[in-house]
């Protein structure tokens, strides 16, 4: 009896770190809203107007959403065959998984500079193509939106691989045998059974990569064009160079709303495409 009452009391202290983190998080979100909506004379939408009234900022939003969409789709498309292969080769799965995750073992900055070495005007790819006589002048592969897309896709693809793989691994392999015994070949089985059942994993990957690219900062700074800003780099600039917390907060809230909109669209697409596999 005594043990039963005293144990929860002593265990209650374990909640403290979590509460601390929660308090800090809620505090900073509150601060964000305060900065964004509190002007010199109380409540104000002036910072939002500063952003929404500028045509060049519209372009930043458009670029952010476009790049995030392209990156998430590219990552999903590239990740699917890799996930499928990992699923199909159980003996090699752990080794291949390590290879897939290698980009995360390298620091963000080092990895991004790696792309400079490969894609830069005097980089490996351009030099090789020039040497082979395919091109005369270097292709603009970097310091533009293409560079950002390549860099982000590379970093985020492991998320798409893992989320797809985790769903593939849940598929009962008897389902494939059942399909085969009903006359279906390998591709037909994939199209009619494996693909529909793995779509939830693909959509999870799309959500993760889309949201992460929406808020990307370092990759667009290092691999993007100087004038081709994304929302994340805009916020970074307002905080670090302009010390304009209010404008940065307004940017952040705009970005949050856009991300939520994108996520809602993804959910709607998933609901329309993925049949309810109520097991």
């Amino acid at each position, binding site marked *: 009896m005594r043990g039963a009452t005293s144990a929860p009391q002593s265990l209650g202290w374990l909640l403290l770190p979590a509460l601390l983190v929660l308090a800090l998080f809620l505090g900073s979100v509150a601060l964000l809203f305060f900065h964004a909506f509190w002007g010199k004379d109380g409540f104000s939408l002036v910072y939002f107007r500063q952003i929404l009234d500028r045509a060049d900022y519209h372009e930043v939003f458009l670029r952010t959403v476009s790049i995030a969409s392209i990156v998430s789709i590219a990552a999903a498309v590239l990740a699917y065959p890799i996930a499928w292969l990992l699923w199909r080769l159980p003996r090699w799965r752990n080794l291949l998984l390590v290879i897939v995750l290698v980009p995360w073992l390298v620091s963000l900055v080092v990895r991004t500079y790696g792309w400079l070495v490969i894609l830069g005007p005097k980089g490996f790819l351009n030099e090789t193509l020039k040497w082979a006589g395919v091109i005369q002048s270097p292709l603009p592969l970097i310091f533009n939106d293409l560079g950002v897309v390549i860099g982000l896709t590379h970093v985020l693809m492991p998320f798409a691989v893992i989320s797809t793989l985790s769903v593939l691994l849940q598929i009962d392999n008897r*389902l494939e045998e059942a399909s085969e015994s009903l006359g*279906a070949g390998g591709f*037909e089985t994939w199209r009619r059974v494996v693909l529909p*059942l793995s779509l939830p994993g693909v959509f999870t990957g799309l959500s993760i990569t889309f949201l992460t690219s929406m808020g990307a900062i370092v990759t667009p700074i290092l691999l993007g064009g100087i004038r081709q800003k994304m929302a994340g780099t805009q916020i970074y600039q307002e905080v670090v160079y302009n010390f304009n917390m209010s404008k940065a907060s307004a940017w952040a809230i705009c970005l949050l709303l856009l991300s939520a909109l994108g996520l809602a669209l993804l959910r709607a697409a998933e609901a329309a495409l993925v049949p309810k*596999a109520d097991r």
Partner: protein
Amino acid sequence: MSRGTISIAGIGKEFGTTTVLDGVDLTIAGGSFVTLLGPSGCGKTTLLRLIAGFLEPSRGTIAIDGAPMGGVPPRRRPLGMVFQNLALFPHLDVFENVAYGMRIRGMAAAVISGRVSKFLALVGLAGFERRRIGQLSGGQKQRVALARSLALEPAILLLDEPLSALDLQLRRQLQVELKSIQRQLATTFVFVTHDQEEATMLSDTIVVMNGGRVQQVGTPGEIYRRPASPFVARFVGDINMLDGRISAVDSTAVAVSLGGTKISVPRSTLVGTPGIGAACQIACRPEAVRLGHAADGALSLDARISALHRLGPTVKAVLDTPLGPLTALSMADTPQGAELAEGKTVRLSVPSDSFTVFAST
């Protein structure tokens, strides 16, 4: 030879260094209900998967209606399969599950919907077309799996312990339906189970397997009355087994000594090659052990009832005898049955032709 005949010759299968099947020869008659019966690990499921084509044999050949199946993938074999966990497609509804094979064949929509209706009606699920798999009960899923595998009208249907997950009552009901469907379609059913009652109730032919080998092939009656080995005798139904020694053999009779008692049984009850003085096992079914009758059997002695179990119409008595414990099964509503009580001493007798003598080999 009717459609759906399976000829299995010299099949062996190894997984790594483990031998799972060893020298299996078997002919499964077209249109019959055949059960592969054995304890877990006896190789019955492996044999089924070899027939299905999900595995290739290490040795030997399998032919269906005379056509060798070596290297033929499952989808090109004229058979359907019901899996142990059913393997219904969770993302498709009942109609699409049953229609699956026909969609793969590219059959016309009208033909497909006609056949789906026909087979759903056959398994008693008419009107369930648009249900989702998750909304079905265990028994209904079972029926959908059956309809799906039958919809392509295969010559052979393979069933891998499909009823094992169901409760007893539902299992009995589905067994009856399964057998009636098999009779209607005259499809060859090859059914894997470890449940000997299920095998006895369903099959035309039972194939008893153990340790990767076929122990005996026969009708349920033959397997029960004339088991080919002590293993089969113990595995199918209850049986009393006594250790003895063969003391004499002639053309009509075998004399066996059990401890101090000598009994003589017909030569026809002997399995294996007897050696005079060699050890043997002598078996009799509990229902062959008669209690309270005039002593007219080959074995006749007094025994004390150590335990009594009344099981509805029958009563099972465990007897202490000088030869060791014996079990007797009697009808409860006979005068003899009514008189039985624990602790009582009764006269037991076993007719000489209800023994089976297994000579040690």
